[in-house]
């Protein structure tokens, strides 16, 4: 499946905006990505396996609420930095 990477995370993916990844769930997919790009996962998922407050993960066009969200081959994943700033 293809995973779209937001600009703040591209320092981990050698500047790639889209990468290929595998996994039956969002959690498995992120673990697989983290194997190749160490440190990637912890920037967007906290130590209690919560997706960080200002990060959204979309499977096709539906938001995944947890790492257990299932994935199918061919799904299009978007990792999005939410539009939550602007004051500082």
């Amino acid at each position, binding site marked *: 499946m293809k995973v779209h990477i937001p600009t703040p995370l591209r320092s981990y993916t050698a500047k790639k905006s889209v990468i290929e990844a595998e996994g039956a769930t969002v959690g498995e997919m992120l673990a697989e990505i983290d194997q190749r790009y160490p440190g990637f996962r912890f920037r*967007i998922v906290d*130590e209690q396996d919560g997706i960080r407050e200002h990060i959204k993960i979309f499977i096709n066009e539906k938001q995944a609420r947890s790492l257990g969200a299932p994935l199918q081959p061919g799904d299009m994943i978007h990792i999005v930095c939410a539009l*939550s700033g602007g004051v500082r």
Partner: protein
Amino acid sequence: MLIGTRKGAFILRGDKTRRAWKLSNPIFLGHIVYHMVLDHRDGRTLLVAARTGHLGPTIFRSTDFGKSWKEAERPPAFPKAPEGQKGLVLDHVFWMTPGHASQPGVWYAGSSPQGLFRSEDGGRMWEGVPGFNDHPMRSAWTGGIGDGTPDGPKLHSINIDPRDPSHIYIGMSSGGVFESVDSGRDWKPLNKGCAADFLPTPDPEYGHDPHRVLLHPLMPDRLYQQNHCGIYRMERPEGRWLRIGRNMPKKVGDIGFPIVLHPRDPDTVWVFPMDGTEVWPRTSPDGKPACYVTRNAGKTWKRLDKGFPRRAWFTVKRQAMANDAHEPVGLYLGTTSGELWISRNEGASWAFLARHLPEIYSVEVAELSK
């Protein structure tokens, strides 16, 4: 000078005269850099505690004084809670301190919410210090997530006794000052004599708000702190805080964030008071920036404001004031309005060193040669 700001880090390189300075390009531009610290034991390892508005916290390392950087392989994080229980989530690393001289590679980090972490390999891999993070009293000591600074509760002011690596002091906002004599396996509150006017309890054992705590390296039984409720000195082993801020001018008061010690004279201390009245503007009292110095361990204080603007409305955060070890001692302070100030004469006069920086969070002196 190692400068941490709301929008990245900067290195300001000076010469021995402290008159020629060159500012680096921003490092990790856009990251919130809470602290950038040199390992004074090797003179080349730098650690940066950072996060961004979106991305979680991490630590970056350089072993060539900032020429190249790598991320910590295992940055500080709380343990995963058992299924069905709520675990702590690290918001940011706020504070970093190199370990004892006899323990090269050891570092300590303090976090928001209050957690203590340790690395034994120069900041590559970090582990929680369970004696603190899992202490049965930790939750009571810290008061929970909502009981902290507007920017989150913090563990800071990690001081290692230069005589004994197992003897450690920490400060927490909130929580108070705590001491361990067994390398962090157990901790005891050390807040007797310190006010906590914001609490309903008259003389609480913990729950205080030290803003910055320092041990004097030449007199390790002497501690100073700038607290939310005054300026204090403690002589060990007595273990009672004496409010030396009572001797400050009443109109100025003794509230502030930073406190700086003279490297060779344990009786000389500088503070930068702020307005802690009514809604706590945290700007200089009456908008008149000034440093204050005592040269007799707090019996008397002298105002030092030459060179500062007559009126200004910035804040100097707890990590944003530092000193060098020159003769006379140089003082440095960074402001929330992005100005860095220097005094080459122990505070007698002040001048701009840099301006138009982002909001300054921390200032550290890294002396590479005397």
